[in-house]
């Protein structure tokens, strides 16, 4: 049983039992007072009755003895007569008219025997344990002393109502009789706590005490209390089972909800909770289950979004890192590319300007040609950079004009051969004219870059084919070589700016990127494919010129 269930049960029990206990408590007090009043009257009546009887008996003995004393006569006969008349008289001693005699009920006394000298009113016990009271009466003719056996009189105490203790004390507070026989035998009263007490003096130092112990007085009430307690316990036990069931019907849903909340706190989505208990608890669990379901859906969506975003960020990071690495490589390469012609230009210019050497004119011309060549190379390099920068900013300006590609390419053939002097270059041109709208300067840059790239990355002597093909939508300008090709892993990246497949490769790393930008600026695309039999084929698709049939025919 949980603490909550226990508290619920105890609270319910307290709410049910407290009024009963309160009523019982008040009733108990009222009954207690009533019982005390009744017992007080009973005790007083008992004391009065005992006192009256005892006083009467003692007084009777005294009066008989007084009468015998007054009558006088033979003291011996007086003594014997006293014993005969007074059944409780055990022994008697008579002094009359100066003569003395004594007699005993059980013993033959020798002539001149005397009773023991003890004070009048004192009590003694003989070998049988019987208390005897010394009585003395005086008269004008003499004196009588008698020992009165008290036991027959004290048998009165046996008639004291049950539950009441009656005690008779003699002089010096000696206990003479009690309704409790054990007190008589021990000679001392047992302590009785919280008792109603009535005391009555019988004269001559005698005292009667009557007590009614509280425990005895309240015995009926205690029996009723015990019955009440049993009844309450029974009621408690009888209500415990449905009480526990009710408490559990309330606590079980709470426990379920707590378990569910704990699962939420731990970052888990709890399984659907069982709907138990009263309707209110079922509603709460139902609402919790709906909330858990919605939360689970939101969590799943969020997780997917986070996963996708993470993938994007990872890709972007990878690209950024690759671009950073490429830029680093480019800077290193471009520095070298810029430095090499500049070094040559500076070296040859310094040589020409050396004051202590007079160069022959042909040598000087050769030096100047080299300087011019290096300056062209620098110019070319710088133009590439500028084009790329413009393209990246979206400022690559096109001046498209209608042009026929086959003728244009055929006119470029000598310059193309110069770009790859170590390779046999073949033009592959279709028989019909191929018309496109394009910027010839940019298109020139595209073709030069592709041919120069093929010449740079293929072994000397391997052929390069430059050609044009067509389909319905586009004109295809291609450059084919028979070199080692490009691994598939980096094929998609060779058109990225500053990408160089080989660290030792010369060039800015912008050739293919610029070619791609030019193709795309014309509304086409640049593809890199493997050629059958080995080698690489770079293809630039260019949209064909849209001409109506009349114009075409005219």
């Amino acid at each position, binding site marked *: 049983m949980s603490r909550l269930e226990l508290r619920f049960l105890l609270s319910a029990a307290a709410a049910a039992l407290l009024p009963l206990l309160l009523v019982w408590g008040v009733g108990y007090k009222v009954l207690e007072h009533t019982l005390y009043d009744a017992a007080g009257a009973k005790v007083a009546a008992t004391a009065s009755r005992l006192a009256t009887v005892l006083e009467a008996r003692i007084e009777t003995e005294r009066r008989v003895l007084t009468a015998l004393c007054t009558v006088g006569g033979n003291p011996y006969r007086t003594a014997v007569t006293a014993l005969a008349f007074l*059944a409780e008289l055990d022994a008697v001693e008579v002094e009359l008219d100066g003569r003395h005699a004594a007699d005993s009920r059980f013993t*033959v006394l020798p*002539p001149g025997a005397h009773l023991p000298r003890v004070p009048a009113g004192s009590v003694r016990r003989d*070998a049988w*344990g019987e208390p005897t009271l010394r009585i003395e009466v005086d008269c004008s003719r003499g004196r009588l002393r008698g020992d009165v056996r008290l036991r027959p009189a004290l048998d009165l105490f046996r008639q004291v109502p049950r539950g009441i203790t009656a005690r008779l004390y003699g002089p010096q507070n000696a206990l003479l009789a009690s309704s409790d*026989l054990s007190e008589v035998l021990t000679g001392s009263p047992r302590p009785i706590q919280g008792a109603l007490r009535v005391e009555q003096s019988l004269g001559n130092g005698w005292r009667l005490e009557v007590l009614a112990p509280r425990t005895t007085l309240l015995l009926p009430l205690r029996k009723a209390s015990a019955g009440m307690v049993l009844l309450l316990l029974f009621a408690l036990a009888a209500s415990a089972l449905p009480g526990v069931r009710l408490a559990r019907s309330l606590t079980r849903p709470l426990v379920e909800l707590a378990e569910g909340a704990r699962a939420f706190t731990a970052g888990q989505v709890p399984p659907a909770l069982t709907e138990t208990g009263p309707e209110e608890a079922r509603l709460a669990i139902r609402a919790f289950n709906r909330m858990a379901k919605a939360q689970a859906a939101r969590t799943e969506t969020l997780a997917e979004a986070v996963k996708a975003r993470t993938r994007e960020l990872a890709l972007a990071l990878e690209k950024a890192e690759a671009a950073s690495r490429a830029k680093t490589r480019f800077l290193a390469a471009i520095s070298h590319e810029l430095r090499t012609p500049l070094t040559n230009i500076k070296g040859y210019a310094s040589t020409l300007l050396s004051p202590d050497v007079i160069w022959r004119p042909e040598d000087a011309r050769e030096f100047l040609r080299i300087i011019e060549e290096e300056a062209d190379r620098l110019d070319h390099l710088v133009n590439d950079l500028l084009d790329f920068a413009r393209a990246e900013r979206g400022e690559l300006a096109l001046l498209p004009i209608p042009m026929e590609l086959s003728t244009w390419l055929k006119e470029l053939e000598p310059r193309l051969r110069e770009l790859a002097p170590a390779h046999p270059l073949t033009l592959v041109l279709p028989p019909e004219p191929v018309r496109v709208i394009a910027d010839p300067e940019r298109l020139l840059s595209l073709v030069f870059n592709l041919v120069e790239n093929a010449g740079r990355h293929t072994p000397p002597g391997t052929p390069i084919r430059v050609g044009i093909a067509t389909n319905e939508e586009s004109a295809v300008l291609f450059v084919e070589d028979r070199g080692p090709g490009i691994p598939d892993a980096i094929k998609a990246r060779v058109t990225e700016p500053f990408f160089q497949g080989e660290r030792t490769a010369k060039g800015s790393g912008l050739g293919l990127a610029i070619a791609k930008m030019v193709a795309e600026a014309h509304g086409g695309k640049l593809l890199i494919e493997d050629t059958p039999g080995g080698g690489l084929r770079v293809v630039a698709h260019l949209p064909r010129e849209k001409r109506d049939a009349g114009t075409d025919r005219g």
Partner: protein
Amino acid sequence: MLLLIGCSRQETRVGVLVSGPGRMERVTGLVQALKENYPELRIDICNGQGSPAHLQRCARELESQGARVLVTVGGIETQSALAGTHRVPILYVGLAASLDWGFVKDLRAPGGRVSGVDNGYAELTGKRLEWWVRAFPETRRVLVLYQPEVIPTPRALAHLERASETLGVALIRFPVQSAEDLVRLKSALNSPRPNAALILPSHILENHLDSLIARLNEAGIPLIGLNREQTRRGAALAFGASNRALGRQGARMVAKLLAGYPVAALPVERPDLPELTLNPRALGPLGLSPAPWVLDLAQTP
């Protein structure tokens, strides 16, 4: 729901052992007094017909049947009850010389499982002689009939001897060990002739009292008996508590035991009222007239 509590009241039982019809008077007094105070009390009386073995069996059966107290009316009954039982308190009614029997250690606190009412017959033997002398001051010799092997006899004889010395009366001893001894009583009555005969407590003498009285009357010798019942049967004088009075006194002690008082701490009681009884019908034929003042104090049987 009803809570049913069953309770049963166990019957309170008291057993009484009596050796024969001679002591039934005590039983009568006891039963009457008990019934007055305890109407629902069950009292089982076992008459042993003078057989100790039979009394012992009775005692055993009464204890096994749940008797709360066994009441005996004499020494032989008390001995049988002690031998036949183990736990039940035993209360004797009318036993002489309690201490001499060994049933109790102390009159004020018996200490065992036996207590009771001592009839005081042994101690009162001297007083009987004294009363006789008061009634008949000319008495000089008294025949004493006694059963030597009976426990109270030595104590009774001691009291009697002290009294005889005080009173100046000579004692003639006549021991009786069986009923047949009474046959030779005649010889004891002649030389010298006693003024009276006095019996001490003895079951032989009590059971053959009528025969004894007849023999004494034949010889013109009055008998000093033990109690009122013996004067009814022909004794001239008796001083002692009546059997009925002893029975009633015993009933009060039974009540204390039934109330739960421990028997070991219940003092042995003396008879409340020894009474003087004179039998004029016995005295008249013998030509004896007691002193008038004694006659005034005595009761008739």
